[in-house]
């Protein structure tokens, strides 16, 4: 398989996953908003921080108001990680590999991007937002299912999975990061009663609430939530699960030794870290380390199989 094609498929996987996770995060934040007592609003700034786009945002906006943040994350052309930008990038990458993908999958990616643009106003309105985000998530899931069910499970498919799993692991760490840090003004505010709500909301951002309940059989507590999201072997959005998927895909590819080595380092580090006991600051630092490790896996994939830069 051509290196360029492998690279494009990988990015299709990443961008679709990015769009879906951004939609999940926005949906959960909006829902949390409705649960909190009047006068207390969840901060929107961390969402921008999560995308690493503070500079970009602040260059155009004077404050982090809800409508501005939503618009920026949903449909801003300037924000390369907005849902619309991600879908456009997924489509552009898919366009160049139409001969690799089942026809219906290309048609759905194309439609996904067009729909997201055409219905943007709906997504920006408070009433339509829930439906809009739900549709983004559902369509992406439909696509994932369609590709799983109709595409050859060959090298190309594994590059798609690599892109998806690396992005998913990365997004999961980002979501945990913003959700454990500064989301609610908890200190001295008499809002401790709402702490559980915050953790429920974190789980919901990852569609993990129900599965957490089933597998942990515990009430929603910080330590257990972190343990579940980092180390669950069963939950498909946990870091551990993603790393195992990455490992499986890597092993199907030729010349995978050095990428596997990098992955093992990351994996053993993550699995041996007692995240459940970590206070905020060390946890934040640890998440940084995980993201750096994921970047290294990406770099390794890129140098092993993608086209060399011009």
């Amino acid at each position, binding site marked *: 398989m051509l290196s360029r094609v492998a690279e494009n498929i990988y990015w299709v996987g990443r961008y679709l996953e990015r769009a879906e996770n951004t939609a999940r995060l926005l949906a959960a934040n909006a829902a949390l908003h409705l649960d909190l007592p009047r006068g207390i609003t969840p901060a929107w700034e961390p969402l921008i921080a999560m995308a690493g786009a503070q500079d970009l945002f602040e260059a155009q906006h004077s404050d982090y108001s809800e409508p501005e943040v939503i618009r920026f994350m949903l449909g801003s052309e300037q924000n390369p990680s907005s849902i619309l930008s991600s879908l456009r990038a997924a489509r552009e990458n898919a366009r160049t590999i139409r001969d690799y993908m089942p026809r219906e999958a290309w048609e759905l990616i194309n439609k996904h991007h067009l729909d997201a643009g055409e219905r943007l106003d709906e997504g920006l309105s408070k009433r339509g937002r829930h439906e809009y985000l739900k549709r983004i998530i559902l369509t992406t899931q439909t696509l994932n299912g369609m590709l799983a069910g109709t595409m050859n499970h060959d090298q190309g498919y594994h590059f798609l999975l690599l892109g998806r799993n690396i992005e998913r692991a990365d997004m999961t760490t980002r979501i945990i990061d913003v959700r454990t840090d500064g989301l609610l003004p908890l200190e001295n505010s008499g809002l401790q009663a709402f702490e559980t709500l915050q953790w429920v909301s974190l789980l919901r951002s990852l569609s993990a609430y129900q599965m957490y309940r089933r597998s942990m059989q515990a009430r929603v507590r910080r330590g257990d939530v972190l343990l579940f999201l980092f180390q669950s072997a069963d939950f498909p959005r946990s870091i551990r699960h993603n790393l195992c998927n990455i490992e499986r895909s890597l092993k199907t590819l*030729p*010349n995978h030794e050095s990428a596997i080595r990098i992955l093992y380092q990351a994996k053993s580090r993550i699995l041996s870290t007692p995240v459940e006991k970590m206070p905020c600051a060390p946890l934040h630092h640890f998440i940084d380390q995980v993201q750096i490790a994921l970047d290294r896996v990406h770099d390794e994939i890129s140098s092993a199989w993608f086209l060399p830069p011009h």
Partner: protein
Amino acid sequence: MKNIDWKTYEAGKVWDELIDTENRPRPHGEQLARLLAGMDADELASRQTAADLAIKEMGITFTVYSDETRGAIDRTWPFDIVPRIIAKNEWDTIEKGLKQRVTALNRFIDDLYHDQEIIRAGIIPREIIASSSNFRPQCVGISPRFGVWAHICGSDLVRDRDGTVYVLEDNLRVPSGVSYMLENRLVTKRVFPELFEDYAPLPVDDYPSQLYDALAALSPRDIEYPEMVVLTPGVYNSAYFEHSYLAQQMGCELVEGRDLYVDGDDCVYMRTVGGPARVDVIYRRVDDLFLDPEAFHPDSLLGVPGLLRAWKAGKVALANAPGAGVADDKVVYSYVPDIIEFYLGEKPVLPNVPTWRCMEPEALADTLANLENRVVKPANESGGYGMLVGSASTEKEREEFAKRLKQDPRNYIAQPVLGLSTVPTIVEKRMEPRHVDLRPFILSADQQQVTMGGLTRVALRQGSLVVNSSQGGGSKDTWIVPLR
């Protein structure tokens, strides 16, 4: 709702492919005419809508360039559901003529890059070749396999008022359109299945496997599964849909220049996730001058440095061969009947359109005096760009064109305005005649194959003679049917 009444169909003054001058269907079109007449206008319109929808869903597109959108946009392929029918016995003659023509053209190209006997024999003036923008000195002395340079040729045919079929031009560089020919048949089957009850048009869908065989025959390595690729300029090229379609149909890789490189052993490799893989045959859809920055345009990003070197060393086959476009020149076109005589000792089966070479002073004077009744074309453009259709021009346009013509007569030819034949076409629930041409594709390698029919392009605007999709043209399914 009213049904179609062929009695009121106004075929106009030209040859209509379905209805004769007495408003009766031609023999091969009787059942089609009857079937269409049995449908009311709404029924027809709903079939057309179904076809348009199918095309949209199937994602059949072409790309047009536009300044307004700052780049390229994907348009769906305009298609009319009424097929164009040609009787098999007539087609047999056309097919014979096309094979003869392409055989002679390949001999001609091979000769030009070797001994130039045709010039020495005084048949073609040397200056035509010397001044041809498509002659590649880099190709002199090269001998591609089977002596074939133009492996894929798309020749444009038109039928004049009296029913004579002429060759309008030969496209020997990177002719496109064959994917639409194939898709048109699929769409017709989908939306008009009843038609196939009365007719069994000869199938067209073996083209990809014929193309595959022709390309495989060129492989420099004698191996069972030569590595073949389709080289595309990329996603913004107007024919990208076709490039990806053909790669898909042949089951070979669709590559861009950056996917390939030429190594020290002069072999071409593609960069794959398993490491370098040697490439044997490249069906290139990139123009000559962009193929290899070492040999041609140094700033081309589309090409592969060293590709010409690899080709010259016989380590890779290129289809079409670089330099084949020299016979694409419209001034050369005017000599094709002589070329056929010279190499094959035969009379041409298919006539050329009468052509004046503006480089000849008398022809230039005649052309300038009769611009209103001439089609004047630049020698080396394609896609219908830069030409003047005298009968459809304003006086100001003619004046400006005359200036250009006088400045560079070598670069122009003139032809009479032909009365391109028409085919009934659905226009706002009515049948109206629209002008068509026909582009069959001829494959040449160890053997020759001609597509069964070709791509019928139709000028959708009333009275228009311009069929190019980039300029408002559409297409029709083309049927070759045996007469019972």
